[in-house]
């Protein structure tokens, strides 16, 4: 029996009169890669920001690792054991790759207000281990501001893993990468997820990545959940075909 790291029940959020997310429910298990797909404006980003705490829901509940998170700020959601990567990478440009990871581990240890030891000597081994995990240990001493985009995505992943999360939220993890690099990053992610028993919720535009890497897929359209299932089931689903291929229902 695997436990749920994320339970979403009847989630709803409107902007003005537009129902961006309408009555959505789904679960995410430990060690599972769940892809959230749908055309532009389907409500993926809103859904993500609700789970992350950047937006607060109008109705419905979000339960992360058994705790309700409605109304919690992103930094408090993080403390429950949630890692997050962004569509457009958010890293500390004036720090080295290693220092970016050290920052995250320092926060995990609640040492950000410490004024005694100097950072270059703190948490080096843990940070290097995380860099090795995502395969950019050779870049540890370069400034994040000058890094290639694909490498920044890896830095983000390492940062997101620094608090030993049980839930990982990845918004377009491979956006801006080449095809080969995408598969490589997602393969690495699924290995990490498996060994660390993390549940991953991700959005993705690249359907090759989605169908080859995810365990389950949920499909959103106009704020509503229209299909849920394994990649095979989704591939055969008529509603999904209609949404993506524009075939009108007969």
């Amino acid at each position, binding site marked *: 029996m695997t436990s749920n790291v994320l339970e979403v029940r009847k989630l709803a959020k409107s902007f003005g009169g537009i129902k961006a997310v309408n009555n959505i429910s789904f679960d995410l298990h430990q060690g599972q890669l769940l892809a959230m797909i749908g055309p532009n404006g389907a409500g993926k980003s809103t859904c993500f920001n609700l789970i992350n705490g950047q937006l607060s829901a109008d109705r419905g509940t979000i339960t992360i690792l058994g705790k309700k998170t409605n109304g919690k700020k*992103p*930094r408090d959601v993080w403390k429950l054991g949630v890692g997050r990567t962004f569509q457009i990478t958010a890293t500390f440009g*004036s720090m080295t790759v290693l220092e970016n990871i050290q920052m995250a581990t320092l926060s995990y240890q609640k040492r*950000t*207000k410490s*004024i005694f030891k100097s*950072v270059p000597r703190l948490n080096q081994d843990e940070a290097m281990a995380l860099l090795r995990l995502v395969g950019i240990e050779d870049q540890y001493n370069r*400034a994040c501001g000058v890094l290639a985009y694909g490498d920044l995505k890896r830095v983000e992943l390492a940062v997101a893993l620094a608090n030993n999360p049980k839930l990982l939220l990845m918004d377009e993890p491979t956006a801006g990468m080449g095809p080969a690099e995408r598969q490589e990053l997602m393969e690495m992610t699924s290995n990490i997820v498996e060994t660390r028993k993390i549940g991953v919720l991700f959005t993705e535009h690249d359907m090759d990545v989605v169908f080859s890497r995810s365990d389950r897929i949920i499909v959103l359209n106009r704020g509503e959940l229209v299909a849920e299932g394994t990649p095979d089931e989704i591939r055969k689903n008529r509603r999904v075909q209609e949404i993506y291929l524009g075939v009108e229902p007969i």
Partner: protein
Amino acid sequence: MGFYIVQILTGLSDASALFLVACGLSLIFGVSRIVNMAHGSFYMVGAYLAYFFIDKLPHGPFTFWIGILLAAIAVGLIGLIVEVFLLRRLYHTPELFILFATFGIVLIIQDLSRWLFGAEDLLGQQAPGLSGSINIMGSYIPQYDLALIVIAPLILVGLWLLLTKTRWGILVRAATEDREMSDALGVNQTWLFTSVFFLGSFLAGLGGAVQLPKGGADLLMDLNIIATAFVVVVVGGMGSIPGAYLAAVIIGELNAFGILVFPESTLVMMFLVMAVVLIIRPYGLLGKEEAPERGDTTASVSIIRPASRKLKIAGGIFLAMILVLPAVASTFQLVLMTEIALFALACMSLYFIMGPGGMVSFGHAAYFGGGAYFAALLVHYLQTPMELALFLAPLLTGGLALIIGWFCVRLSGVYLAMLTLAFAQICWSIVFQWGTVTGGDDGLLSIWPSAWASEKTVFYYLTMVLCIGGIVILRHFIFTPFGYTLRACRDSALRVDSIGINLKRHQWVAFAISGAFAGLAGGLYVFFKGSIFPDEMAIPRSFDFLFMVLLGGMDSLFGPIAGSAAFTWLHYTISRINLWQLILGSIFIVLVVVLPQGIAGSIGNRLNKYFTESS
């Protein structure tokens, strides 16, 4: 009853000039993101020019109004010249540098006005037909006040029509809403910026001109109005013209009635209103939250490395030179070095929040002067010994910074900067107005060091120990997890939030730490000078510190020291010359245009290869 009606009307008429200045400031900021420090100077020039025109034009029934209009147009043209010949070159540089260049203009206009119009306060001419008073149920109000009450809403409606009904107005609103997008859509930004700057300057000039019969013209108008205008803009909401009017009316009424309750500290009331508004609506009454800028906006993203061996040796040599200096230097040189060290500590504390913290403070003199006044008051009233005063001054100043910082960290960028300036001006006004306690303009005198430290060489060593100690501690902080967290907050608010860091709380603590160290420098300064005057808390002093930090360069930890040394030397060299503010202002501008990396940054770029270890 009549009395209260008159007070209400007086408040409304006070609001008029304030509104004209604030809406010009707001308009310019909305479109070009320039906080024009010289806006108060344009207001002052408007008043002087109106006086000049009304005086020189042939007398007739319309002389007064023609004079006012000509003055406003002339100020608009001055603004146009400033924009075309200076600001246009700077749009690609960080906001802070542009702002700094506009402060250079403040200094230049200040000296030119003194030279052209004299240092005497001018009593404004009366408007023909409006020089009498009107009786309202037993209380009198000048007729001209009623004219002022009408002028502001007329301008408000005119601006509203201009912004909503004309093509130009639509472009202005588009640029205010989303500058990058309007640029991408092919709006001619050069022309738009210039025309908006003209209009904004015109309004400032008009504001100065119309208040002439009421307030006259004097050389203190520029900085007095700019702080109040900042408060109006922050309260009303940046970029909102109706917000500026609403806020101007609130502040005007507050002054009219506040003066009845607390005649000595109307500015404190203004502060309270601003505080309440910021708590409820951080972006002002009618303002909207800033849309985040796309693309990179940070001034400095260079990574910080611990000192290399060679740099440590160089630092050691530097320390040794400071140690042996009293043996070879003259008393004057020792005094100069003491002053440099004091300013270096104050600058380092400013650099601490500006560089790693990413929070620009335009009001750092509040903490430097605050520390000085705390120490002076302790000595003056409680006969506190120097040692204890030097211990308490930083603590009390840290407490002051904790209070001010609580409000400031709710905002960011230029909003934060304007708020720091407004708070500093309030601190200054308390010290200036509360003469019975602080001595007001006469300052506090005879604050001398303890007997053991009264000798110049001993005091020199004491200063060096405390200042270098302070600088080393602040530098150490930058390398600790706390310092790294500050930089992280500056680099990416989104990321720190998503790794569990409370951004505001760290910034707040940094603000207090910075204030405490500036307070230590101030405390030492008062024993060094033996006296303290409100000038040490005033806006020009805040800009001196900013100048030193920028002069030194933001990319180097050595910058604040280099900057304060260069500034102090420069100040001693040129302050004996007439019109030295004009020279200083010109240097500000040249520096921003030619040497944007600062001294230490520029030298650093050349020396870097000698001082970094190959990894």
